[in-house]
């Protein structure tokens, strides 16, 4: 799921937004659970990156190599003082490239034609759930709880009728049922790119639905 602010979060973290943009984004964050969670994840990434210790290796192999390939000790000294740093956008871009590359490799491997070499198949019951599904579930659970509270408040304030609340809950159940069906299908056929993308699409729809329903439930007349 993406909105107009998602791409600005790294600039926000880097303090590169001007004051009006910053204020607008902060106002958006107050009502957008997804962006808030994304921002928190970015902060954790940056925190971990900044916390990395630039320790020398316990056993430095370089002097021996340098001797064998004839590199001077000056080069060795320059190598020791060199330090590479990345900005948040660079880190994010790198992580996206890494994820995309990993996904690409997995996708290509999963689509490879059968070869004559023996292949060991993993029973479907042993197939590990995809990590993003678990993470999306976690975000979804939180958003569902938020929506439940927002519906209660919307109904209490007279903004939503009991019928509307029931229909929203019913629609959420319809989406959940579709997700459950897609998951069961994936257990049978975990390498199906259609089923993977269908599950991802349905979960994206659920998050979008939750955000939209939450916005309607909390909207002031």
């Amino acid at each position, binding site marked *: 799921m993406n909105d107009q602010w998602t791409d600005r979060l790294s600039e926000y973290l880097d303090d590169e937004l001007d004051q009006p943009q910053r204020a607008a984004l902060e106002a958006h964050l107050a009502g957008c659970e997804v962006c808030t969670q994304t921002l928190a994840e970015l902060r954790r990434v940056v925190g971990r990156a900044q916390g990395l210790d630039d320790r020398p290796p316990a056993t430095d192999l370089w002097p021996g190599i340098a001797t064998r390939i004839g590199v001077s000790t000056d080069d060795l000294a320059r190598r020791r003082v060199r330090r590479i740093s990345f900005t948040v956008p660079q880190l994010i871009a790198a992580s996206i490239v890494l994820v995309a590359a990993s996904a690409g490799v997995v996708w290509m491997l999963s689509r490879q034609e059968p070869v004559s070499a023996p292949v060991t198949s993993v029973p479907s019951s042993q197939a590990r759930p995809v990590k993003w599904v678990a993470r999306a579930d976690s975000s979804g659970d939180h958003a569902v709880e938020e929506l439940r509270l927002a519906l209660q408040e919307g109904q209490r304030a007279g903004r939503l009728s009991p*019928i509307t609340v029931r229909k929203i809950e019913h*629609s959420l159940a319809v989406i959940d049922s579709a997700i459950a*069906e897609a998951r069961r299908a994936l257990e049978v056929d975990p390498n199906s*790119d259609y*089923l993977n993308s269908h599950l991802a699409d349905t979960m994206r729809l659920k998050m979008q*639905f939750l955000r*939209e329903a939450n916005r309607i439930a909390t909207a002031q*007349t």
Partner: protein
Amino acid sequence: MLYFLVAVAALTQQDTDTSFAVRQGQRLEVNDFGGQVVIKAWRQNSIRIRASHGSRDYIRVSNVGSTISIGASSRHGPAMVDYELLVPAWLPLTVSGSPSAEVNIEGTDAEVSVETVEGSIRVVGGKGNVSLHTVEGSVELEGASGHIELNSVDGSIDVRDVSGEITAESVDGSITLLDIESADVDASSVDGSIEYDGTIKDGGRYRFQSHDGSVSVSVPERANVTVYVATFSGDFDSCFPVTLKDKTKHRFSFTLGTGTARLELESFDGSINLCRPGQIHQRED
């Protein structure tokens, strides 16, 4: 800021009838808690408000910047009002009918944005950004052009004689797109069926996706399109012969003509039907 109250309290149900001039560059916002909002285009550069409301309700009209706002309130909070507005066709419109107003707009030639919770939305006309969202109601759009976004959680979406980029989403309702002129259409529903009868343009992108519902699409005879079909446990049927390729367990594709357009048809466990224009209804009958 211009701000005035149009109606004053009387003892019974009251009608308000007032007009004022507007100029190019302005836009209109209407907020109605419940009731009916009917907006019709006319040739004059002015807005006429006819409103039927409770005797203790007030119609508020304000002009902040370029935005004219019409709303109503009473001593006890938001008021339910039936509006009939006559507006210039060029006037961009934003209508919030939350939670229970029904919105009917006819003859507009400008941007339209409507949002309701319980009420249905019907728009004839619209140009540029046209955005219609409802939770429980149905959405009907006819004769619009531009960037079209339609969304209904529980109601159906019916679109006819529309051109431009179209996005339609529903959870529990069907989506019907007829007489469409577009190179970019994306329609998805979780539990509803999807029907498309319109152009398949060279280089265009068309995506129709349902989980539980059927997907029926017409493809003109001379279309140059590569069709990608995906289903888990649904059926595929075509009114005309096709040669399948790249067949896997849940997917296959085929090419018609030069195949420059891309048509994606997906239904997890519903049927997928391809026909020629005008044939889909015949088959369903």
